[in-house]
C-alpha cells in the first residue's frame, strides 16, 4: 500500500527532497526496476520465438500433439501435465502473497508457515520441469520418421512392447539361441538410427543377429511435418495399415538416420531445429529463475525464523522476494500460452 506523500521526513534521508516521489522504499523500487528489465528479456525471447514460428508455419509442432504424457499413466493426456505445473506455480504464488499479508500483520508464525509452503511448491515445479525435460529429450517410442519420398512425419499410436531378442546368429558376446531381455528399447532405437534393422531382424552392437519378438503396434497415424515428393506438410495418414507400412518401409530401408528420437540442440523429433533450441532456452531460463527464486525464498525463510525482520519492525524483505516470485509465475503464464497452447 502506498504511503502518505505529505508525511514530513528527515530531509537528509530523502536525498534532500523531503518526500519520496513514489511513496515507496528504495528496495522495492529497485526490485520493480529489475523486474521490468527481466520482463524485457523474456518478452524479447518470446517475440523471437513468435518470429521464428511465424515464418515456419506448418512444420511447427502443435502443443497438444507434443505434450500429451503423464508420469505413470503414459500417453493420451494432452496438456494435462503442463496444466498441473501451471496450477502448482499459481498456488505457490498464492501462498507467497499470504506470507506477505501475514508479514503486514507482524505475524511471524504465519510468515514462516506460508514461506515453507511456497518453497515446497517451488521445488515441485522444478521437479516437474526436470521430468518434462527428460521426457522431451528421450522422446517417444516411434520418433520422427523420414519416409521413402523424403517427407518427415511424426507418429502417433501405441508402440507394441518388445518382449525379447532371440539370437539367431552368434556375435562377439551373444551365442545362438540366447534370449536377451535387458535394455531392449535402447538397443532397438540405436539399431534403427544406425540402419541395422531389417524385417524383424536386428543386428546388435556386438555383431550378432537376433529376431525381434514384439507385440503388434496399434492405431498408428502419421502427421507429415516436412514436404516430400509425395506427401506434403500438414497431410495426415490416419489409416493404420498404410501408416504402419510407410513407417516400417522407412526403417527397413537399411539407411541410417531414418528416424530421430527425442531432442537435442541439433535435431528433434517434434519439429524444426529452432523449436528444440527455443524450448531448451526459454523453459530453461525460466526454470533457472524458479530455482534461484526457491533459493532466495529459503534465505528469507531463515531470516524470518531467526526473527531478524521482526526486530526490524517490518517484513519488507518478504514483500520484495514476493515480487520476484510472482514475476516468475507471471512469466510462466506467458510461456504456457505461447509454447503450449497457441
Amino acid at each position, binding site marked *: *500500500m*502506498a*504511503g502518505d*506523500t505529505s*508525511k514530513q*521526513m528527515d530531509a537528509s*534521508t530523502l536525498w534532500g527532497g523531503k518526500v*519520496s*516521489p*513514489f*511513496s*515507496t522504499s*528504495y528496495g522495492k*523500487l529497485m526490485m*520493480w526496476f529489475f523486474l*521490468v528489465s527481466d*520482463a*524485457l528479456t523474456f*518478452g*524479447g525471447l518470446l*517475440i*523471437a520465438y*513468435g*518470429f*521464428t514460428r*511465424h*515464418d*515456419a*508455419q506448418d512444420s511447427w509442432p*502443435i*502443443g*497438444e500433439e507434443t505434450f500429451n504424457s503423464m508420469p505413470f499413466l503414459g500417453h493420451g493426456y*494432452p*496438456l494435462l501435465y503442463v*496444466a498441473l505445473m501451471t*496450477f502448482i506455480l*499459481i*498456488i505457490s*504464488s*498464492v501462498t507467497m*502473497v499470504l506470507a506477505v*499479508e501475514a508479514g*503486514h*500483520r507482524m505475524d511471524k508464525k504465519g510468515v514462516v508457515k506460508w514461506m515453507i509452503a511456497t518453497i515446497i511448491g517451488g521445488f515441485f515445479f522444478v521437479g516437474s520441469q526436470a521430468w518434462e525435460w527428460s521426457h522431451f529429450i528421450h522422446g517417444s517410442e516411434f520418433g520422427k520418421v523420414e519416409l521413402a519420398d523424403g517427407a518427415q512425419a511424426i507418429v502417433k499410436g501405441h508402440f507394441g512392447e518388445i518382449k525379447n531378442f532371440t539370437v539367431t546368429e552368434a556375435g562377439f558376446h551373444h551365442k545362438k539361441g540366447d534370449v536377451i531381455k535387458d535394455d531392449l528399447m535402447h538397443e532397438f532405437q540405436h539399431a534403427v538410427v544406425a540402419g541395422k534393422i531389417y524385417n524383424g531382424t536386428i543386428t546388435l552392437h556386438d555383431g550378432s543377429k537376433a529376431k525381434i519378438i514384439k507385440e503388434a503396434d496399434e492405431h498408428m497415424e502419421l502427421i507429415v511435418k516436412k514436404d516430400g515428393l509425395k506427401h506434403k506438410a500438414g497431410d495426415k495418414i490416419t489409416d493404420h495399415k498404410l501408416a504402419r507400412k510407410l513407417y516400417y518401409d522407412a526403417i527397413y530401408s537399411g539407411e541410417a538416420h531414418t528416424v530421430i528420437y527425442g531432442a537435442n540442440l541439433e535435431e528433434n523429433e517434434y519439429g524444426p531445429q529452432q523449436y528444440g533450441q527455443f524450448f531448451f532456452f526459454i523453459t530453461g531460463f525460466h526454470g533457472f529463475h524458479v530455482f534461484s527464486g526457491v533459493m532466495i525464498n529459503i534465505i528469507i525463510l531463515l531470516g524470518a525464523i531467526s526473527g531478524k525482520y521482526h526486530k526490524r*519492525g*517490518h517484513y*519488507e524483505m518478504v*514483500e520484495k522476494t514476493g*515480487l520476484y516470485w*510472482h*514475476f516468475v*509465475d*507471471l512469466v510462466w*503464464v*506467458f510461456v*504456457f*500460452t505461447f509454447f*503450449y*497452447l*497457441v
Partner: protein
Amino acid sequence: MERDDVIEYSLDTHHSEEHGKLIRKKIWKVTALLTVITAIEVLLGAYIKQSSDIWQVVKWSFIAMTLLKAGYIVLVFMHLGEEKKTLRYIILVPYFLFMLYLIFIALTEALAVGNALETYGV
C-alpha cells in the same frame, strides 16, 4: 552500517487484523479465478484442434485470458494496483510501448522472411 531505506514507507504497509481478513478473502477469490481460467484454457487446448474453423477465435481468447491472468497477478498479487499512480505508469507504460513496437516489427519482418523463403526456397 546505516540502512539507506526509509523505514516509514516500509511501516506504512502494515494493516490490522480485520483488514487482513478482507485482503485474504480477495486473495482466495483471485486464486479461484486464476484456476478457473487455466482450466478453461487447458480444456480448449485439448479439445479444439488448430485445424478447426473456430481456431482463430480460440487463439485470440487464449491471448485475452493470458492478459487477464497477468493483470490479476501484477495488480493484486504484486500489489501494483495499490501503489501510487505515477509508479504504476512508470512501470507499465514504457514496457507496453516497447513490447507493442517489438511485436509489430517482428511479425512484419517474419511475414517478409516467410514470403522470401516461399519464393526462393530454403
